[in-house]
């Protein structure tokens, strides 16, 4: 797979390295010549071009016409938007992703149909989660922080302990995936009865985590 990265800051640099190590064909375009040089020196393989990634001619030099994915990760949101639009609408790249530096622009990108990743938003959501739901651990955040796999350890005599799963009031946008009981791994069914100290692994949207917490651990 051929991936074109525009922007050679910390994000672009580390993205290029990670993707090259995973075996992808990578090209990177960076405006600042000194940055581009440094990245080229440290990258085992792949193409590094110094130039303005908003310039369609430069994008063509970088092989955009055969790219399956374009990631626009410069520090300027307006540039990232234009790069993604050029990639998708002018060059027909099937998958484009923009980094959004200022979370206030996220909505704009979404309304204009460009997928975004905002590290600020993800980190904020993760911190919020930690702060509000202390006894549920987030194992993995998916869908850019909108969905997560969580783990809850059941307490005796409260919440779900002693109840069958079919009798729990689980929020609609959540599902119990696995129960770890000692060394045993249980794939839950409706009639599975939960016990204290069970570790419940569940998938839930961020919005419904509080309701899920209540169903599993009881009200605070």
């Amino acid at each position, binding site marked *: 797979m051929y991936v074109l990265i525009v922007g050679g800051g910390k994000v672009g640099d580390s993205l290029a390295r990670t993707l090259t190590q995973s075996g992808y064909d990578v090209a990177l375009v960076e405006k600042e010549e000194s940055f581009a040089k440094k990245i080229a020196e440290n990258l085992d393989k792949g193409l590094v071009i110094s130039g303005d990634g*908003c*310039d*369609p*001619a430069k994008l063509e030099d970088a092989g955009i016409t055969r790219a399956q994915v374009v990631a626009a990760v410069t520090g*300027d*949101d*307006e*540039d990232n*938007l*234009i790069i993604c*639009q*050029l990639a998708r*609408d*002018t060059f027909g790249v099937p998958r484009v992703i923009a980094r959004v530096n*200022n979370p*206030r*622009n996220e*909505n*704009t990108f979404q*309304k*204009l149909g460009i997928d975004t990743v905002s590290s600020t938003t993800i980190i904020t959501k993760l911190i919020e989660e930690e702060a509000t739901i202390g006894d549920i651990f987030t194992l993995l955040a998916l869908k850019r922080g909108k969905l997560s796999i969580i783990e809850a350890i059941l307490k005796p005599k409260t919440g779900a302990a002693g109840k069958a799963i079919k009798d729990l009031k689980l929020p609609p946008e959540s599902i119990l995936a696995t129960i770890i009981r000692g060394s045993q791994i249980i794939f839950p069914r409706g009639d599975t009865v939960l016990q204290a100290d069970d570790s419940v692994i569940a998938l839930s949207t961020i919005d419904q985590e509080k309701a899920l917490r209540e169903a599993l651990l009881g009200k605070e």
Partner: protein
Amino acid sequence: MHIIIIGCGRVGSQLAQILSQEGHNIVIVDKNPASFKRLGPDFNGISINGIGFDPDILKRAGIERADALAAVTNGDNSNIMASQIAKRIYNVPRVITRIYDPLRADIYKKFGLNTISTTTIVAQIFRSALLKESSKLEFSIGEDLGLIEYKAKEEAKPKGD
């Protein structure tokens, strides 16, 4: 008309002054507060300091009730982004975008923006002035307006005159 101008450089400030004198309600946005000095003492519109494509700034500028928006900062991409927000999210009836890069101006014209590439216009004016030939100066302004200049020649007189 309620008109928003993004960018208070030479073009933006002059545009703001002209339109304001004609009695329009003007809100002008620029990220550099010092640039508002260009507006002069007679400007009676509103100036807002901030990024022209920031949704909060645009709301403060009254984008929800704006009749028109002109994006004339010196950043092509900022102009394109602000214009798309105005046109596609807030349905502002008339949006004009200044783009220096002629190639990007063409591309975004195809995407439905009313783009004006001042680079092309100025280059053509210079060409005509330098060559002093029976000039044909031609460029389009937006999607429904264009300008063509022909210099009449003696031999170009219609037959039979």
